[in-house]
Structures are given as C-alpha cells and as structure tokens.
C-alpha cells in the first residue's frame, strides 16, 4: 500500500539553527512529492514540490528539499530557522494517476528563542 511517513512528531530547534524534517514514502514508482506548512488555525500552504529532474528543489520561505530515490526520502531543510517557522509540516505524495494525495502524519516544529 502507498504510504508517507514522517518519523518525527515533534522537533524543537533554536532560532538560527539549521533544520531537517524527515519524510519517507512507499510507492511502486517515483511519486510526485510535496511539502506543506500549516500555521495554527490555518489551512495548508504549499512550500515546494518535486515532479522530476533536479533532485534538490527550492521552495518558498527559504526551504529546500532533496529527493533521494535510494532512500525513498524527501527531507525538508532550512539553513537558519526563524521564530515564524514554528508550525506543523506535512509531507505528501501522489502517483499522478489521478489519485488522491497521501499525507504523512505531520511534524510539529517549535522554535526556541
């Protein structure tokens, strides 16, 4: 069965520190991959997406993600975290067969001053 796993439920980092949020997928073929961010009480905003080509994808708000086929991973990174980055982050995937997005369980990011 297709699945997306975010191993870390909570992560706390200090402001200015680097960040990496993990995402692993289980799909028969290379899926289309997404990272969304959700601020408290808000909907989801797309940070970045990977369809094909360059495995390092740049997104909004200084985020990037790297697709690694050998590890079935699509980890999200940011070199220097700001307090405003505190939010819930969701990884998602689809097989582009007109099927639904499969979401991971989310990772809550907290930023220490």
């Amino acid at each position, binding site marked *: 069965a297709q699945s997306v796993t975010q191993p870390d439920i909570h992560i706390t980092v200090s402001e200015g520190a680097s960040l990496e949020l993990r995402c692993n997928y289980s799909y028969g073929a290379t899926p289309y991959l997404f990272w*969304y961010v959700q601020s408290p009480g808000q*909907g*989801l905003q797309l940070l970045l997406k990977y369809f094909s080509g360059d495995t390092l994808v740049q997104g909004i708000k200084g985020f990037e993600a790297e697709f690694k086929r050998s590890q079935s991973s699509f980890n999200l990174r940011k070199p220097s975290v700001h307090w405003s980055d505190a939010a819930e982050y969701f990884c998602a995937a689809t097989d582009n067969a*007109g099927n*639904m*997005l499969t979401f991971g369980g*989310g990772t809550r990011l907290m930023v220490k001053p």
Partner: protein
Amino acid sequence: EADIYQTPRYLVIGTGKKITLECSQTMGHDKMYWYQQDPGMELHLIHYSYGVNSTEKGDLSSESTVSRIRTEHFPLTLESARPSHTSQYLCASSEFRGAGGEQYFGPGTRLTVT
C-alpha cells in the same frame, strides 16, 4: 494566485442543529476535497469530487454529506451536529489532470458542537 474560500471560519453550535460549511474556489478546478483534522493531528479525507454531480466518500467514515452542483462550490452538510463532530474541516481543490495532483487549501472551518 490560488483562491479557495471557506465560511464560516469559526462556528459554535448546539447538538442536533443542521449546519452547512461552505467552500468555494475561483480556479476552475474539477477536483475538490474535504478533510477533517483534529488539533495537531493528521488530515483525514472524508469526501471528494471529480466534478459536477460527482461525490465520493473518503478514507474516514463521516456522517456528513456533500454536493457538487456547480464547479466552484462544494458545501458540506451535517444534518444533526453532535459533539463528536467537533473538529477542523479543510477544503481543497486541484486540477483534474496535470500539476501532479497538487492541492490548494482553504483556511479551514473550526467547528465546535456543544
């Protein structure tokens, strides 16, 4: 820019009341979705639609119903609200083909049933 709207943003209502959560999008997307999300928890797909007059149930069983009479409008109705329906409801839309299934989300409706 993606525009998808949900009203109301917040709703507190008594048990047994009928409620309708509104969702509209101006992007002409064929596909629309409703998700239920408890605070700090994952998203659960409860309904989706491929286009006008198409509605399907999602992965999570829900007592709510939906309709799709117009492309841009996908309301969700609860005939008799109960405290177990207290949750956040997120509406989303996507193109039928292309864009790899990227979904655009509304701001959500936070429902509290007392």
